[in-house]
């Protein structure tokens, strides 16, 4: 069976708008891959198609050769955090995670573990409505980690994090890759992922602009930032 995350000819049209246009790339295993592009480039739509939330118009997005919705144990295979505010404001953080843990086949001790990993142990009995955006991002990461998955798909996890939070996130992602996990993390800011990712996929207007090692992005002597801006300039 094909291993890894693989996007093949993926296209999504919403009415007359083509959000994702014949996108193909592979996500290398055991590494952090930055999925980059300006706002509206089609990153979120691509990730949602990968997770079975949005149906592709054509093409496919596969995890280990299968669609997400065909996986035997989706949350144990892919951990995803794609919505920063996604929790009932009146529910306590621990209850929120416990609901997701049950469907990920995880027990209460795993909830303790992920709370510890994201630094929310102290806040676990508070209602999520009182959480800052940064805390909600941490809660989202905790929910992604519940099933101890091989793959992590994170949509803009750095949004709303303060500098200390950003540093913590970088450490977390690097640690996860060091354990052999595959991490796909989107961002519209190159510098957010430049210190973490060793592979980048850059999209603009729904089309692939670059997929390869981050190190080769500035091969022609330009800075990373310049290369990124050139690739994502209006075409």
């Amino acid at each position, binding site marked *: 069976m094909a291993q890894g995350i693989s996007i093949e000819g993926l296209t999504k049209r919403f009415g007359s708008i083509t959000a994702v246009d014949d996108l193909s790339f592979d996500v290398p295993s055991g590494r952090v891959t930055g999925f980059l592009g300006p706002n509206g480039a089609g990153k979120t739509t691509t990730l949602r198609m990968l*997770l*079975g939330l949005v149906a592709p118009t054509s093409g496919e997005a596969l995890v280990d050769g299968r669609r*997400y*919705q065909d996986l035997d144990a989706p949350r144990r295979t892919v951990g995803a955090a794609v919505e920063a505010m*996604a929790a*009932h404001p*009146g529910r306590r953080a621990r209850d929120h995670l416990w609901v997701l843990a049950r*469907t990920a086949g995880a027990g209460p001790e795993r909830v303790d573990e992920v709370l510890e990993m994201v630094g929310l142990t102290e806040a676990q009995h508070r209602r999520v409505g009182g959480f800052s955006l940064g805390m909600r991002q941490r809660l989202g990461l905790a929910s992604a980690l519940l099933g101890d998955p091989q793959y992590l798909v994170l949509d803009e996890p750095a949004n709303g994090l303060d500098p200390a939070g950003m540093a913590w996130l970088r450490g977390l992602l690097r640690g996860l890759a060091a354990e052999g996990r595959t991490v796909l993390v989107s961002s519209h800011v190159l510098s957010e992922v430049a210190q973490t990712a060793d592979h980048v996929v850059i999209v603009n207007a729904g089309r692939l602009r670059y997929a390869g090692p981050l190190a080769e992005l500035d091969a022609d002597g330009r800075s990373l930032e310049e290369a990124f801006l050139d690739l994502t300039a209006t075409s």
Partner: protein
Amino acid sequence: MRTLIHLELYKLRTVRAPLVLLGLSQLLIVGGVTGLVVSSDTLRTADAAPSALAHAGLASLFTLVLGIMAVAGEYRNQTITDTFLSTPRRSRAIAAKLVAYAVAGAAFAAVNAVTAVVATRTWWSVEGVPLDLDEAELWRTIAGCAAWNVAFAVVGVGVGALMRNLTAAVAAALAWIALVEGIVGQLVGDLARWLPFSAGSALGDLPGRVGGLEPVSQVAGAAALAGYAALFALVAVTTTVRRDVT
């Protein structure tokens, strides 16, 4: 499937909205029975006691809103994403919700029935009127009201899944009950007796509520509401399976 149903019930227990709705139901029932007693010339008419008890059925308004929150509430809080990530076969996720909310509707129904019976008995004894209601009729009314509560919870799940916008769905449901069903009823003549709220009233044994028309029998009301519940359950599943969650 059992796990999914238990999880839906756990989700209901870990937020406050269901308790608020349950509390409001009791206020409506006690207020309704009290209003009937203080505004009535005599409690000795044959209709008086069933009318009082049937307020348990009118509390279906709140199980309807509860049901609407099942899917529309998840869209509002964006938790629907996590729900479908956990259960990518969405028909299973929705089926679990339908069962769980029917169970929750039944729990509401039990509390509603107790409140209605206690409020009715209390007022009748305060007024010094013997409660002219044989056991069979009491149970028939209570059972009908309970079935109405449950059916409206299931209908609510369908309405919420169809509309997805919580505010719009609640507004539409309340507008239907307060206004639209009456207008539609005038347009369809005799069929008005079979519209959801009228059928519910018949099921809840609510005497003479269908403007001008003799209500359908309780059994017919039950059949009609079962049909609506099945229809809306189907709507809930079919609308949810195909749609993109963006």
